[in-house]
């Protein structure tokens, strides 16, 4: 087991999350579904329910009953289970911050849109890549055990589903270190300041056409 980092940063931290997992078993849940921008908020939305507005609410503000987070036993979920390409689309930071505000700290999916993934690392939402059949098993379990919680542990890189199985996952070493230590990107880079400075100087010498215009 990894030890507690000696120094903590000023960024968002993620160590583990115990919570209800909501199966949103769709592929290609795009950023315009997760967090529309440039449009007025849905009349039914509160700050906590602004994520997934287009599939959470009808235009008049009524809840859509088929949306998983509107269903009994899943309203207080903190973990989303999804299919392929979760968060495909734009770079908007609200695609991560609105779910976080709504208490969603983890998304377990087969794959992620690259920009959603980057935002999640920055903002401290844990994006866990897992094989589809494993996510299916957890989703089935979640439907059969409404209101029961699972544990997502970044330190040990495991998902524990009581009475079902323990699933191992892997995130990039740098992501794990960043989130366990709560470092900001700037703090990560400040450790490399000298190296960056030296590189930039020789780079400028080598590639003057990039600088002179």
């Amino acid at each position, binding site marked *: 087991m990894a030890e507690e980092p000696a120094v903590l940063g000023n960024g968002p931290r993620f160590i583990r999350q115990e919570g209800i997992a909501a199966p949103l078993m769709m592929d*290609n849940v795009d950023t315009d579904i997760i967090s529309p921008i*440039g449009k007025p908020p849905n009349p039914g939305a509160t700050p906590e329910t602004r994520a997934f507005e287009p599939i959470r609410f009808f235009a008049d503000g009524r809840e859509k009953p088929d949306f998983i987070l509107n269903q009994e036993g899943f309203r207080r979920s903190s973990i989303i289970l999804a299919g392929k390409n979760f968060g*495909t689309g734009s770079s908007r930071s609200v695609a991560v911050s609105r779910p976080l505000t709504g208490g969603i700290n983890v998304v377990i999916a087969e794959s992620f849109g690259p920009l959603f993934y980057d935002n999640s690392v920055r903002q401290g939402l844990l994006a866990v890549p897992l094989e589809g059949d494993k996510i299916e098993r957890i989703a089935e379990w979640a439907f059969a055990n409404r209101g029961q919680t699972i544990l997502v542990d970044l330190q040990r890189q495991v998902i524990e589903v009581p009475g079902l199985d323990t699933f191992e996952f892997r995130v990039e070493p740098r992501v794990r270190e960043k989130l366990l230590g709560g470092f900001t990107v700037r703090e990560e880079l400040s450790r*490399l300041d000298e190296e960056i400075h030296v590189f930039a100087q020789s780079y400028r010498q080598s590639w003057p056409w*990039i600088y002179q215009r």
Partner: protein
Amino acid sequence: MKRRDFIKTTVGAGVGCGFVPMRSLFARQAAGMTMYDKIWDAHEISYLGGITSVLHVDRMMLPDSGPAAIKRLLDAGETIRNPELVWAVADHQVSTSPERYTDRSLNLGSVADDFPEMKEQLAAMGIQAFGIDDPEQGIQHVVGPETGLTLPGMLMVAGDSHTCTHGAVGCVSWGGETAQNVLLTGTVIRERARNLRVNYTGTLGPWVRGKDMILHTIGALGADAGNRCAVEYAGPLVRSLSVEGRMTICNLSIEMGAATGMVAPDDTTYEYVASREFAPRGELWDQALAYWRSLPTDDAAAFYRDETIDMTGVEPQVTWGISPEHVIGISERIPAPDDAPFEKRDAWRRALEYTRLTPGDTIADTPIDEVFIGSCAESRISDLRAAAEVVRGRRVAPNVLAWVIAGSQPVKRQAEAEGLDRIFRDAGFDWREPGCSKCYGSNGDLVAQGKRCVSNSNRNYVGRQGIDAITHLVSTPMAAAAAIAGRIVDVRRLMAGEIV
């Protein structure tokens, strides 16, 4: 272990759960390198383990909020690293109304004021900033290549997701970076992507263009095909395209789920770049050109995945659903969910419910409410010329609201010099000022609630263009044809006089 050796022997988890086969990495090391890996290595400052590195940034491109972001940092006593590598242009929040220059309040935020107020201060730092009053202003992914601020071989980053467009000139480019991190460090932290090559073969039929190539590709391979991949578009058909056509293809790389997209530079690229305002000249040009010629992927380089798309017989494409992968040829029928692969049936059902289409109907003849021609996908001069050719001597159908928005001020001036604006206006199009506009409405330009829009942009997501608005993605000439007919039509049939 040395950094390079470690890269070759390490597999990473990262965005997806697939693993890079070790053998392919060894093959790459032994036999040759891809263009993506060459450019990555040239910018790598520090390796952080796994597949993550710190990279040097050649260009940081800022949007409307750029000057304000810089001001905040300067006011806080911070230093901008490499300011001469930073540039900004107002596009997302600017009004597209011709009144925007006089009634500045039409522009959202303080975007109309920030640029002129900070222009001198930024220029003194070496930062180019183009506001609505500047002759270079436009959509950032049109402006970058057009001005020569984007050059081959560069690592070009920005916040906006369609930054992958710039890869068309032979650079590596991506969005999703935060202004503050890049401005303060001149670097980014990134995970190295796998190499995916898409080879285009066959021939393009009449009125089939770059947009149809990439839409057809996303339909064939899926909207997640590029997961954790850098896509290199290759093959004779790509070579035959102009740089503008290549930009359209690279633009939709993010719609394929890719980290970035690119086309190796060639003589077409160099000719395009040579005349640009900020391109190097004289000795620097020679030096740059020699380097650029070394960039194309080595013959022996191994790809994680190599796909071939035969364009022979592919028709103009049109989307029917809520993902760019929901796409068919214009003469095809709307598919039924039961025809979908099992895991996609639910998604197709939801898509058809949203777009209010009936399986078995032809996509052609679907009545429409609005047409949008603009966006970073296709709003360059060659796109507008193609649209004007369709529109010339015809009228926009009654009850269709149709807009044309040139991608930049230079494109707009060129179009006006050629009389294209008159063709559009005479037909009943609105000819508006450059900006992102109705592609997703962050400036307030939205498709009316629940209306159906044919758009030459890049995303047909739920609510993308407006609340409950339905988007059909097509090429620019197909969008022009739909405006004329008042319904989705085959541009080839319209031009053949078969549709009145």
